[in-house]
């Protein structure tokens, strides 16, 4: 069953096309990583799915319903980012208490345990928390609410490495006990590789890739060799990234599918796997060169 279906989803913000003819679907009980550069349209997509923003054209359904201002979608989904607004008069424990009243599946015990584990104090104020602490607190709400659709927009903003690790672990543990559909947007893909089942890569509001994690890991192949040879070999092939490394040597990333890899080996080129994180970065590079080209 598909929890989310988008068909030609387009969102205009003024003259800027934030989402451009986006079509994809997300199955029930999966964790999807929404990957893209800054400004790719990740937040826009999540806000539309959460029902906060309205699509300009195209079709979008969540639980087979149009999400915009839909109460059914709202009660079965939660949108978490680092900018959640709370009353300045309420303490953290009061906020959790209110949240528990809104979400029918709320696990009070879990929220209290996480609250204590991350050493929050009952009487602390939300606006006194640092950026990372805010993210951690929001994450508690995101996990404990146990919404059928959990949308986490850059959930780890400001968290330190240890907390990030704990967060991914907590998310996975609770997901295994209580399967649900999750979308995490991030640009730290390498940390989430073990967590994600699918990756939705978007660029300039367009879908670039929507693949299972395993396939993404196999998507590209790195080729290193003498510059002329590499240049010649990659001619007429699907090149994702090219970079000169050292003297008279070039590193190129190509789409693995259909490549005569044995021949490359015979030609003396070194083949290396490309991590999912790197492939996403290479795929979404605006130019084939990278930042170094700026300084040429």
């Amino acid at each position: 069953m598909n929890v989310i279906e988008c068909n030609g989803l387009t969102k205009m913000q003024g003259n800027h096309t934030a989402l451009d003819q986006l079509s994809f679907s997300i199955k029930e009980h999966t964790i999807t990583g929404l990957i893209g550069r800054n400004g790719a349209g990740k937040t826009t997509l999540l806000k539309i799915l959460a029902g906060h923003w309205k699509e300009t054209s195209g079709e979008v359904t969540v639980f087979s319903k149009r999400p915009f201002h839909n109460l059914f979608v709202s009660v079965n989904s939660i949108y978490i980012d680092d900018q959640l607004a709370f009353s300045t008069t309420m303490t953290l424990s009061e906020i959790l208490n209110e949240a528990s009243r809104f979400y029918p599946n709320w696990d009070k015990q879990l929220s209290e345990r996480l609250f204590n584990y991350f050493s929050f104090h009952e009487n602390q104020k939300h606006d006194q928390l640092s950026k990372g602490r805010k993210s951690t607190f929001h994450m508690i709400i995101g996990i404990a609410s146990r919404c059928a659709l959990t949308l986490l927009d850059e959930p780890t903003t400001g968290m330190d490495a240890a907390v990030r690790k704990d967060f991914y672990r907590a998310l996975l543990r609770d997901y295994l006990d209580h399967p649900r559909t999750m979308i995490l947007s991030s640009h730290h893909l390498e940390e989430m590789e073990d967590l994600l089942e699918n990756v939705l890569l978007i660029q300039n509001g367009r879908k670039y890739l929507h693949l299972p994690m395993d396939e993404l890991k196999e998507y590209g192949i790195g080729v290193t060799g003498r510059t002329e040879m590499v240049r010649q070999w990659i001619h007429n092939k699907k090149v994702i990234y090219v970079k000169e490394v050292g003297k008279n040597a070039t590193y190129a990333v190509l789409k693995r599918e259909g490549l005569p890899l044995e021949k490359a080996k015979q030609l003396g080129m070194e083949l290396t796997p490309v991590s999912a994180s790197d492939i996403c970065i290479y795929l979404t590079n605006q130019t084939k060169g990278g930042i170094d080209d700026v300084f040429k």
Partner: protein
Amino acid sequence: MSLNNVDIKRVIRQQFSYKCKANTSLFTSMIVIQLIAVLFSLSGTGMIGTSIGYNGVSIQFYSGDIVLVFTMIWAFITAIMLTTKTYTETDYVFVANHLTSNLSNIAFLFVASVIGAITSLLAVYLLKVVMLLFFDHGWMAASQEISVGQWVSGFLTTIFYLFMFSAIGYLIGQLTQRNKLFIVIIPAFIIGSLVIFVGSTILMDISQFYFNDSSFFSVFIKTVGTSFILFLISMVLSNGQEVRK
């Protein structure tokens, strides 16, 4: 995970109780405003002078009018505040749509109007006690006996006036949220109409329409009807609006 069905009435109730807890600081400003109004009221709201024989006589009239007018302004501003980004965003952290957000705001404004009515009536006693204890005036109660029926009507009307002013504020807030241009248009419209209607009785007529009617039923219809229409327009305006962020 099975999906939960949603009961709109339950969500409105939850949001309303959430707002009552989250927006307590709005009442701090009400208290300050009422105390300032009590201070202003000490100079009296009117004076009549005459002479009797060899004596000059002045009667200074005091009332809680300023306190209530200030509380009405507070209700107006509070309603505008509820439509601002800071307050609407807190709604959408949890379960909400524009209908539940608006209806729980209206419920909150009604409760705020009741609290404003009770405190502004009680604040009059604070004013009276301050004057009795510190002012060495000759006192004339000289207030007509008010029947229980009149008192109840007066109290309910106080609530309705506050509620109506919050409805005006809510509409203005929604207009400015919809288009920032209204921040300029509304004051310009008010000042412009004051200039155009200078010498005309239209403003007096409007205030007479609401404030000079001695039939409770008629006042009830006018104030509650006006509030209903204003809130309805606000809700239609906010329908289809995105959550701002």
